[in-house]
């Protein structure tokens, strides 16, 4: 006891703060106040960083601290090595280069999209040690528990000389990263597009930021959520009709999140036409946790939508958002403030429904986007697409789903989230969406993962929607019923052809499986004419000219 006492008395309780001061002192000569010239960015990082540091490099699924990523990747590995990267998205080649060049060696992340192939190669060559692949909220949570960054490299639209940051519409991950770093004696370095005297608004207070660097070019933003209505097929229109009539209307889905695919864009685009004709305006789809999808413009203009909170922004939507501040979350300056962590929490706890697409679904309803040779990770879908066990507030949709899941069982009443997987039975090149065994198993084996990477677990899935019908898994009482319900909407895939026809017909009689005709939908009405906008130009028209799409989406 005396020893322990003595030890705790002798312990230095402020090593992190002093280490921070030492780093800042080393770097002081490079900075004018907080401002560092772009040419000195490499020197700054080499001075501030220490081998073995845990570093958060801001890479979201849209906004990228691309200049700092490049500078980091060009550091001398003799001096800076064994970094432990913690970041939500690996999107740029530089995100992988830092491992190839030996600057970093460990990685905890959430999503790797475009770099998934290179990442898999480096993992098999043992050049990256992956701690874990997370969902967004999970990774953000760990920033405050056991993965707190020592140094964070973030990006913002603008800074003033005091280090205050304006992140603009694409605020995304910046607040959560800076908060975790700044309040645990870390160092925050921001790349900004411009340094100005007065910011439109302050998104990050200056005393949480240590250095700002004006990047030679504005940071890269990917227009990830723009779907050209011209590419929506009549099959997708049919599925969208089924979704609205068979799920949205039946459950009175009022708060929701949509995936980013064409299937859900089709739903957004037939709200003002098909859903309106069913008298659903004001009854469904009023509140959204969603990026500002251009495809949502016609529904907003038609008066369907009351609020939208966003993870990030979308290029070209700035003026539209500014002019629709009743709908979007905007600052006093008029521009949007997004926040990935907040929106993820909102989507998880405060939404009745998640609906999105996937690549593969197995016989238990587990779904995965994993393919062999690519470690793509998860992103936010699992947070959206899982029942919120901590939810306590009621809504018609939540209660009805809960009732259906508990019918005939002696359980205390509680609600449940609707989690809908919407897929065509075959993807491009005749790849079946339904499989006996997910490719995720093989990927797990080849990449030595603890678990197969499942995007949404079958136990969380409430409905599977295909062009053949809707399977309501809430109503299934046995594993066998569940399997047949899935086979019963799997169309002409081998899984679908393997159905027990009698049992499927029986499930259909019970309303577990419902075909378009059971929903009173005439397939012949499923044409592109139902889309409130059939081209990007129609979206511009619907926005009254406020939407300014990126060049690659124009044909005028």
């Amino acid at each position: 006891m005396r020893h322990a006492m003595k030890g705790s008395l002798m312990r230095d309780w402020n090593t992190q703060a002093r280490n921070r001061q030492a780093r800042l002192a080393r770097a002081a000569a490079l900075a004018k106040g907080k401002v560092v010239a772009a040419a000195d960015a490499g020197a700054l990082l080499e001075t501030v960083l220490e081998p073995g540091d845990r570093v958060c490099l801001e890479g979201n699924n849209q906004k990228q601290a691309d200049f700092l990523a490049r500078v980091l990747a060009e550091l001398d590995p003799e001096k800076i090595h064994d970094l432990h990267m913690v970041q939500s998205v690996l999107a740029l080649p530089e995100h992988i280069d830092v491992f190839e060049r030996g600057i970093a060696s460990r990685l905890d992340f959430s999503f790797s999209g475009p770099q998934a192939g290179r990442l898999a190669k480096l993992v098999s060559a043992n050049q990256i040690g992956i701690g874990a692949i997370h969902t967004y909220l999970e990774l953000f949570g760990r920033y405050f528990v056991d993965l707190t960054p020592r140094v964070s490299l973030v990006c913002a639209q603008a800074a003033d000389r005091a280090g205050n940051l304006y992140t603009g519409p694409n605020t995304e991950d910046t607040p959560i990263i800076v908060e975790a770093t700044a309040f645990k004696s870390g160092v925050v370095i921001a790349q900004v597009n411009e340094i100005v005297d007065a910011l439109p608004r302050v998104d990050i207070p200056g005393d949480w930021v240590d250095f700002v660097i004006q990047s030679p070019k504005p940071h890269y933003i990917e227009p990830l959520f723009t779907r050209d209505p011209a590419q929506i097929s009549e099959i997708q229109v049919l599925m969208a009709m089924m979704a609205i009539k068979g799920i949205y209307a039946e459950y009175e889905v009022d708060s929701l999140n949509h995936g980013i695919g064409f299937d859900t864009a089709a739903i957004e685009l037939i709200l003002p036409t098909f859903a309106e004709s069913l008298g659903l305006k004001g009854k469904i789809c009023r509140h959204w946790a969603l990026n500002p999808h251009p495809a949502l413009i016609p529904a907003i203009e038609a008066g369907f939508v009351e609020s939208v909170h966003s993870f990030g922004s979308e290029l070209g939507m700035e003026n539209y958002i500014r002019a629709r501040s009743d709908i979007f979350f905007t600052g006093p300056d008029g521009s949007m403030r997004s926040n990935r962590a907040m929106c993820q929490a909102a989507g998880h706890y405060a939404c009745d429904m998640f609906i999105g697409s996937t690549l593969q679904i197995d016989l238990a309803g587990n779904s995965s986007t994993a393919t062999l040779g690519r470690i793509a990770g998860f992103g936010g879908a699992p947070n959206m697409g899982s029942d919120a066990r901590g939810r306590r507030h009621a809504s018609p949709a939540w209660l009805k789903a809960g009732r259906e899941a508990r019918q005939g069982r002696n359980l205390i009443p509680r609600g449940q989230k609707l989690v809908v997987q919407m897929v065509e039975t075959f993807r491009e090149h005749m790849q079946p969406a339904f499989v006996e065994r997910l490719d995720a198993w093989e990927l797990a084996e080849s990449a030595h993962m603890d678990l197969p990477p499942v995007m949404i677990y079958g136990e969380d899935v409430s409905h599977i929607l295909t062009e053949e019908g809707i399977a309501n898994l809430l109503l299934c009482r046995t594993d066998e019923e569940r399997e047949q319900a899935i086979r019963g909407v799997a169309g002409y895939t081998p899984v679908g052809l393997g159905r027990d026809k009698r049992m499927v017909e029986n499930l259909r009689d019970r309303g577990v499986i419902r075909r378009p005709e059971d929903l009173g939908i005439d397939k012949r009405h499923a044409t592109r004419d139902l889309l409130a906008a059939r081209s990007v130009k129609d979206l511009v028209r619907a926005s009254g000219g406020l939407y300014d799409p990126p060049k690659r989406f124009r044909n005028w």
Partner: protein
Amino acid sequence: MEKLTFEFFGGAPVNATCAPALVGVVGSGNLEVLIEPAALDGACAIEILTAARGFGETWRAVLDDFFARHKLADVRISINDVGATPAVVALRLDQAVEDFLGGEK
């Protein structure tokens, strides 16, 4: 490419004055369906030229269901396919029959 042929029996002959109909386009993920009256001793003959090899069983299943929906006799259906999914195939077949029989759209 692969050539597949199917024949179905037991349908009802269509009005011989039905004009041939063509729907769809031979483009990626799509197909064209040509449907026309033909003296086939009561058969409905379907001939497919497809760019996607090895899906004979899938075609069989799609066409079984198609014939269950539309019991045609003395009809020839010719298809040029560029890897359309069964959903698109079924849709085009239904559209072709509708045009062929002069149904209202």
